[in-house]
């Protein structure tokens, strides 16, 4: 799904999609590293 589609589906700016994705990815990475799923 393109960022623009996510943005219009959620009614938020594309920049917010990017920043939330970045935030979610880094959080997930932390969690998965803690769980030993990702090196």
């Amino acid at each position, binding site marked *: 799904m393109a*960022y623009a589609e996510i943005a219009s589906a959620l009614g938020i700016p594309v920049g917010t999609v990017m*920043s939330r994705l970045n935030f979610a*990815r880094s959080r997930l990475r932390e*969690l998965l590293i803690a*769980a030993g799923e990702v090196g």
Partner: protein
Amino acid sequence: MNAESHEIPNEWLALYYDGELDAVRREQVQAHLPGCEPCRQELAALEALSRALAVDRIDEAALGSRSALAAWRELEPRLPERTAPAPAILRWLPGLGLLMGSVLVQFVGVASWVVALAAGQFGWVAPSTDWLNDALSGWALGWFAWLVPAQWSGWGLSLLLVVVSAWLAVLYLGWLAFVWLQHPSQAMQRAESVN
């Protein structure tokens, strides 16, 4: 391209991975990657993350809200126990404590000077002959004022300036560092300002 002329912002890599970069920037990233180990590692980490989530390169047609939910349900038990983030007030507590402590120290300094001055005025003790200097050093040094012997009053003013400036600088820098490092919305704003 080397580290000194690193023209690829970190945020581009996630966009590149998601196929969201325009053609010009995409080519820039492609040209940059072979010579940049950190960027290749970052890209590999993005791929590893997608693999770990088992939603590698999501097929748009296949992705409904149900399959995203199913992916999350599969993933969630594998995540470690989530610790709730500290309430906002707790994150501010050290800075607030510092500020309140300093205010308390100043208050005690001023209050003790007022009491001493009043005691002198009412004749309970010998009135202070150097009340302005006492006031200033009381204000600046708080309850450390008693550490300064009376005969230091010649350079008391410079000492006063140094102490006041140092306190203000420490409080201000500490507050700045605290806000910058601890406040989560700063990280979000930095990410959003990229767009």
